[in-house]
């Protein structure tokens, strides 16, 4: 069993199907990006996983158990949701004291997590004076209170400035390196591309892709190569005869279904001078748009 298992999850709000037959796992020790355009069903999926909304069918579990079936859920799973909010008149320290008492965590953890997110000096100030970035740090501190094995973050970069995003990436990586399973949703693709190991892409509530970042970036067509040759016509013909479709752009050939090594071998065999050779990697945006059917 995986730390997070989503199986045939469906959630309907009246006649609207927010999530349909969604299945995927999240593995320990990896940061998994949960990607999709706004309204794709990401937040609904995470809320179903956390027991905040009831699935219409299917299941969303942690090692086979629903969130409310876990012995000490807040110590097992930490979550930062998109609408993480705090009473404006309460200090960060008091917020954490309350959550520690509610979740059954030792009171000493409050100082630990305040230090971990860099809020120690501001801990006794009322939250209404906090910037958006400080609130996000406080939300993460709340999620870390139970030192959880699973960390779930819904659009955590919203409101963070570039240093804040960089800091968050480092925290997520550190958590994964300690063997924790980290699931982080985002619609800002560039922000997660640099920090995730695996990717789950959904659109219209349905799974569109799931795999390592490299596999999803590569798309479904297998490897692709870009080659610049002295005699592109001859090389293109040779590649096509071997079953590799080629799109020609001047002396630049886009070869599908072949690795750079395979293309180089064909070029050597045909005695065509190669001026440049590189794997073609789709940008995350390209992959995302292709997978979700969204328009740039």
């Amino acid at each position, binding site marked *: 069993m995986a730390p997070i298992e989503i199986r045939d999850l469906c959630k309907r709000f009246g006649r609207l199907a927010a999530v349909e037959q969604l299945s995927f796992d999240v593995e320990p020790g990896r940061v998994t990006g949960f990607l999709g355009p706004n309204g794709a069903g990401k937040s609904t999926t995470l809320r179903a996983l956390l027991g905040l909304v009831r699935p219409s069918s299917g299941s969303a579990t942690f090692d086979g158990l629903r969130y409310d079936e876990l012995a000490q859920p*807040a110590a097992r799973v930490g979550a930062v949701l998109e609408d993480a909010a705090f009473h404006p008149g309460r200090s960060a320290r008091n917020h954490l*004291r309350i959550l520690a008492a509610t979740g059954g965590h030792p009171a000493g953890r409050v100082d630990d997590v305040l230090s971990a997110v860099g809020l120690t000096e501001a801990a006794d100030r009322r939250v209404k004076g906090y910037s958006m970035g400080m609130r996000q740090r406080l939300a993460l501190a709340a999620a870390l209170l139970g030192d959880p094995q699973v960390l779930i973050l819904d659009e955590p970069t919203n409101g963070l400035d570039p240093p804040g995003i960089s800091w968050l990436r480092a925290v997520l990586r550190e958590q994964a390196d300690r063997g924790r399973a980290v699931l982080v949703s985002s619609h800002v693709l560039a922000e997660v591309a640099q920090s995730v190991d695996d990717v789950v892409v959904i659109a219209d509530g349905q799974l569109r892709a799931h795999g390592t970042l490299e596999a999803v970036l590569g798309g479904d067509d297998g490897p692709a190569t870009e080659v610049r040759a002295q005699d592109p016509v001859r090389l293109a013909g040779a590649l096509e005869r071997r079953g590799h479709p080629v799109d020609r752009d001047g002396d630049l050939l886009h070869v599908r279904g072949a690795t750079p090594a395979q293309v180089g071998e064909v070029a050597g065999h045909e005695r065509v001078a190669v001026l440049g050779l590189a794997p073609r990697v789709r940008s995350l945006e390209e992959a995302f748009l292709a997978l979700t059917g969204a328009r740039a």
Partner: protein
Amino acid sequence: MTALLHAELLKLRTTRTFAAIVGTAAALSLILVALGAILGAEKDPHALFTNNSITYIIVLLGAIGMTGEWRHRTITGTVLAAPDRLRLLVAKLLAYAVAGVVLSLLVTVATMLVGTLILGARGEPTLGPGDLADVLWRNLAVAAVLGPLGVCVGALVRNQIVTVVGLIAVAAVLEPAVAQVAPEVGRFGPLAGAPGGIIGGADAAGLLAPGFALAVLLTWAGVAFAAAAWRLGGRDLV
């Protein structure tokens, strides 16, 4: 449950709203008892010591405490930390019952002290220990039930302004109006009728007997709890 209760009491103590409302109500109670003891025409000590506003303010505190979870959108974090929503609701009820009893105890004893000192200094009759204890338990019983009742109404309505205005309208307008036109019905009301029967006073004519009034108030609280538990437990938090 002890940890949840501790957390809920911590919530109460860590906002200025709570301190401001309690302070205002306590000050108002002391001013009213002092004015009543000095200027009142009849100077009935029993009535003086039962008319402290803290007993009623606790219903608003309960409502504000519960609706604040939605107003400040903290309900998600609370439910994540304590996913058993029924236990969460019970912890909140217990917290506001405890808060009601403690606050009512402090304010009632303070008003008794101030009132007895003023009446004694002016040579007016006052209450003996037995009568004071009788007034005290009635105030505490009402506060212990009205706090949780406010929590349940808050869980049902969720909108803070609507809940607070609605409770004040029921207590100050609807129930007195019903009591005027149909006293037999009005005395069963949850915010004025039944609490009035428990507290009694010098002129208890037309009110329910204290024990029966307490049973009526508990029934109101029980119905409100069942409805709140159903609404809280069955709803998606999106």
